[in-house]
């Protein structure tokens, strides 16, 4: 049996063969199509009470109804998304939504209770907290609807182009 030193010397004398390029068939990793969780199923409602959630659903119907080539906010699952999103938001946003929805539970989601949405824009925003809630909810509901895959699919059907909006995502680099 050769000594370890001799074995090492022999190894050094015959360098290992250069790595062979693998054939493309074995080199290629299959690209698997995956599905986002909220495309596969519904998120669990955890933040709003059932009364608040119902009022939010009515508000979504009023602010962003369905149209030709356009899903409604409810079609786009916006109430459930906002339950998740507002539930993770800073305390002030949570309170704004909860108090605003409580008032809608009390007063109903009728034209009269939404009148503040017809006030013209000011930089400072309305002084009244309920009016502020309505303004923010309008923007959130509209953006969440337009950023949904249901919206993208409807736009795609309407225009011959793929309606899916895309963007470059920056991965975490440690």
């Amino acid at each position: 049996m050769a000594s370890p030193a001799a074995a090492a010397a022999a190894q050094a004398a015959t360098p290992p063969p250069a790595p062979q390029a693998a054939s493309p068939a074995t080199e290629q990793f299959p690209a698997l199509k995956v599905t986002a969780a909220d495309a596969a199923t519904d998120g669990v409602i955890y933040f709003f009470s059932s009364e608040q959630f119902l009022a939010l659903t009515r508000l979504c119907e009023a602010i962003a109804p369905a149209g030709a080539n356009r899903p409604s906010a409810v079609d786009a699952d916006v109430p459930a998304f906002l339950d998740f999103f507002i539930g993770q938001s800073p305390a002030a946003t949570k309170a704004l939504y909860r108090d605003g929805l409580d008032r809608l539970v009390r007063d109903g989601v009728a034209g009269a209770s939404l009148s503040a949405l017809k006030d013209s824009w000011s930089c400072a925003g309305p002084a009244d907290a309920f009016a502020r809630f309505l303004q923010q909810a309008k923007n959130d509901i509209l953006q969440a609807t337009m950023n949904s895959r249901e919206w993208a699919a409807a736009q795609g059907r309407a225009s011959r182009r793929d309606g899916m909006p895309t963007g470059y995502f920056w991965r975490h680099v440690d």
Partner: protein
Amino acid sequence: MVIIGSGAGGGMAAHTLTRLGVKCLMLEAGPLFDFQKDRSLVNLPDLPYRGFGQPGRFPHVVQASELDAEAWADEQQNPYTYPKDAPYYWVRIRMVGGKTMRWGRASWRLSDLEFACKDHDGEGENWPIRLADLAPYYDRAEPMFNVTGRNEGLRQLPDGKILVDDSADSAPVRRFIDSCKKLGVPTTKPRRATGTLASSTNVLLPGAIETGNLQLVTNAVVRDITVDPNTGRASGVRFVDRHSKRDYHVKARTVIVSASALESCRILLNSTSPRYPKGLGNSSGTLGRYLFDQFYVKNTVMCEMNSPRGRGGGYVVRFRNVDKREKNFLRGYTYDFGCGGTPPARYIPHYGEALYKELDRLRGASFSMTTMGEVLPKYENHVRINKDVKDAWGIPALHIEHKYGANEHAMAKDAMEMAEAMCTGAGFTILGRHAQMVPPGESIHELGTVRMGADPKKSVLNGYNQSHDVKNLFVVDGSSFPSGGAQNPTLTILALSMRASEYLADQMKKGAL
């Protein structure tokens, strides 16, 4: 040579010095981000927060989107403080290339209205240099970054060595320019570096590394600069590895600090020793003082264009206090303007079907203007070390105090009124107007705190970005500005860094350093 920071200032220093044969070690606090490997195309609806981003993750970085959240420095790891009634939005990027990885690329020269501002109106301090000193460096920086635009021959906005943009303006842009002309207000094309990859990482660092004279160390968070107690000169830099938290000390013949305006100041303030008890190079007591930036009023007017509609945009050149003195404020402001988008839903006082109908009618009809105003540097606006707060590596954090004053408020109001006049004159309908400045810091144009000046009693650096007190210490980022106009500062940082680096190499050759 040790260079702290790899953004516009540090990148240009490395680019310049390595070509002159100087061996450089660059310390970058963040990782190397590879635009090809580390970004991927995704469907926006597949993002967990539908593009809103994780709530509360970046309370002070309004620029952070769900797509690029990882680009911005983590606010929990990198804390800072401010007075309760004066929030400061400190926007940071920690990766190779620094903020040039995400900049807007607007590339204007400063003029002698800024360099000699005190001569012009008696306020503040002059720079120790003039446009003529910096022009040869602007001349070289602009072609490196492929700056495009149109030279107008205006003394408040010096011409550059730029690629000429003689593209035709759309009909609404022409109507707007005519309206400005009637008010005596000059306009021009946007002037900006070409390509989203016009960053330090692509333009400056590859060539520097190719010379064999640059070593780039990533994840190196600098604690402070050490000093030789006998000579009083900088002797090296102490840094800590971002992951392992292992401490290192690297010796340096010369130290160039370019860690971004406020980080550079923080490093100097944290570099205390018996010889420099108030921070390195702070015999004047002005280190940390005269913090300013450029105030922004986003969408100071939002309009509906009349027909025919069109796209495109441009820049309104400073017109206030150029040839005559205005009534209630000093200095001036500029605007970016653009058109062809759809006004945000908040401007439309409807909901439901009526809202969608209005959005359809207004599709492509927006014309908006954003004010960028000069901020007066004031002694009371400052940063200091807050010993009670430390970052994730145990380095004392900054306390930042910056409030806008009467001059800025008066200017913002005037800018809103003038914007309204320009748009009304073009036949546009105003949907909304306001004069609410974004919080200090949000424009990401923070400047000052390590300012240069002719008088060592009133400034930290001389006209070559060299410390008055510590001859082998240079600070080459925006912290060195004694005033800043309303022009985006990056091009001036590049020119200053190039000039300081050539001076430094020359001094080394002469044996003065």
